[in-house]
């Protein structure tokens, strides 16, 4: 059984159809990459899965259970975690305290939350920065902190929204290693990303969104040569017949 089944979800903002009839499934242990030009509806899809707003139509099932329209905290307790495109650290808390907020997800007191937080900070390699105020972190460290905070809630499905955006190639490499480690720990991942090297290197399958619609799904090497995809990204003139 698929871990996540998205069935024909749609969302309209005013007159703009942000996501149209989007369907896909995610198998346990998989990394699904979602790509698409700006405004394709990637983050909107994430927001609907994570419960930030309900889809206008369609349904979302997680582990066979209908979670359509549930609220974010409810989704989180069903073991789906997300990061944000613009990272949202709790700025006036320390790195450790940030991770502890995730750690309190479980029953058990402050001690348990703290142990979980320390474990996750060690996992993402931020132990030396534990006492730093989150406001003082670099952009990439904020992303790493967000990842640690999410992992402290013990998710089964992780939604990563552009975690390498703005990173240097070295930092992106570190983040890729981390994502591999997270998956190796049994977490299923959906990632939205613009950096092709990352998406091609990590994804088992890639889904391409354009104007809120799926235009291609499949293995990274296949999708990257799909003429519709190239057209969406580069425009008609640049796709020469027989180029693939």
């Amino acid at each position, binding site marked *: 059984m698929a871990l996540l089944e998205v069935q024909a979800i749609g969302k309209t903002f005013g007159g703009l159809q942000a996501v149209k009839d989007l369907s896909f499934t995610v198998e346990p242990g998989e990394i699904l990459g979602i790509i698409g030009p700006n405004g394709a509806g990637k983050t909107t899809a994430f927001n609907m899965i994570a419960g930030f707003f309900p889809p206008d139509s369609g349904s979302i099932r997680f582990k066979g259970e209908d979670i359509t329209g549930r609220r974010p905290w409810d989704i989180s307790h069903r073991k789906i975690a997300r990061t944000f495109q613009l990272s*949202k650290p709790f700025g006036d808390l320390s790195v450790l305290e940030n991770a502890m907020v995730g750690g309190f997800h479980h029953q058990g007191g402050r001690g348990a939350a703290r142990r979980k937080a*320390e474990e996750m900070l060690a996992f993402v390699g931020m132990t030396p920065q534990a006492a730093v105020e989150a406001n003082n972190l670099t952009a990439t460290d904020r992303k790493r902190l967000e990842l640690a905070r999410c992992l402290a809630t013990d998710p089964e499905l992780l939604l990563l929204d552009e975690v390498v955006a703005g990173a240097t190639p070295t930092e992106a490499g570190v983040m890729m290693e981390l994502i591999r480690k997270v998956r190796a720990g049994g977490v299923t991942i959906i990632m939205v990303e613009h950096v092709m090297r990352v998406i091609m290197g990590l994804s088992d399958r890639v889904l391409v969104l354009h104007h809120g619609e799926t235009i291609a799904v499949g293995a990274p090497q296949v999708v990257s040569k799909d003429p519709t995809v190239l057209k969406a990204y580069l425009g008609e003139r640049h796709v020469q017949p027989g180029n693939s």
Partner: protein
Amino acid sequence: MTQPASRNGLLYAAPAAALLLLLFLPAVVRGDYYLHVLVGILFFAYMASAWNIVCGYTGQLSLGHSALCGIGGYISTLLLINLGLSPWLGMLVGGVCATIVGILIGYPCFRLRGPYFTLTTIAFAEILRIWAENTEEILGIELRGAQGISVPLKGHHPLFFQFEGKVAYFYVILAMLLMVLAVTFWMERSRMGFYLKAIRADQDAAEALGINSTRYLLSAMALSSFLTALGGSFYAQYFRYINPERNMGLDLSIEFALMGIVGGQGTVLGPVLGAFLLTPAGEISRATLGGRFPGLHLAIYGLVLVLAVMFLPKGLIQPIRQCLRRPPAGEAGTGTPEARSAAS
């Protein structure tokens, strides 16, 4: 681990010393006036701390807490007059009523942010005050409108919250202050404290981590409302007279908030510090210049607030905390993260 331990000790030793001093102060202080000022300081420290539980930790500025104070005062007094119920029990009833009101007001207000939240809390509090000022009686219970109600005298009767002299009141409000500080201390370190601070920093991110923000905001509101009403009952019993202007006027809300903000909101001892600085400042200006310049203490509060927001936005407690916490030069960064964060 060893070095910050002594520093940590100092962090707890300073308040402990202040407490010891306070415990013996009534033995030294002569004259009812000074004792009266001390009771005032402790009362405002208590109220600012109760306010801080919701406003300091959620970052939303309520100026409606005077209504909760008034509810506590009125309900305990009316129960005493009409049913002969001791204010010790009446204040608990008042606390429960204020909790319900706090939740009912908080539910719509917490959907708003910033100034909109503040204005709505003012509106609710003012509606209640104006209603009380213009209501002579309701359901056969005399409220006496703007005239106010006197608490019937029972002489020295501890069971009815009435004492000879001011010393007993001093210890009662001191005990109440210690209770609210203990509650704040516990809350700050619990799941609830972490969650409130997370919501304050970023509500979306908090919700994505499984925090039902409405539930936690309303819990904080309920706790703060209950404690504020207890303080309101004390205020009524201490002065033995209540009226809407004095017990639920907007002035009171502003004073609670001001002391919390100037002292350092979102910290356990910040509001206490604010009350210890601002109450005497207000009292002195009223005592020495009050006749000639009515309302001067408000101007002083305003000035202090402007200075505090400009130079110490996290409150007067911030530099003190930093002094106590900063590792000596050369040792920075050598402590383990655990040890360093233990001091926070």
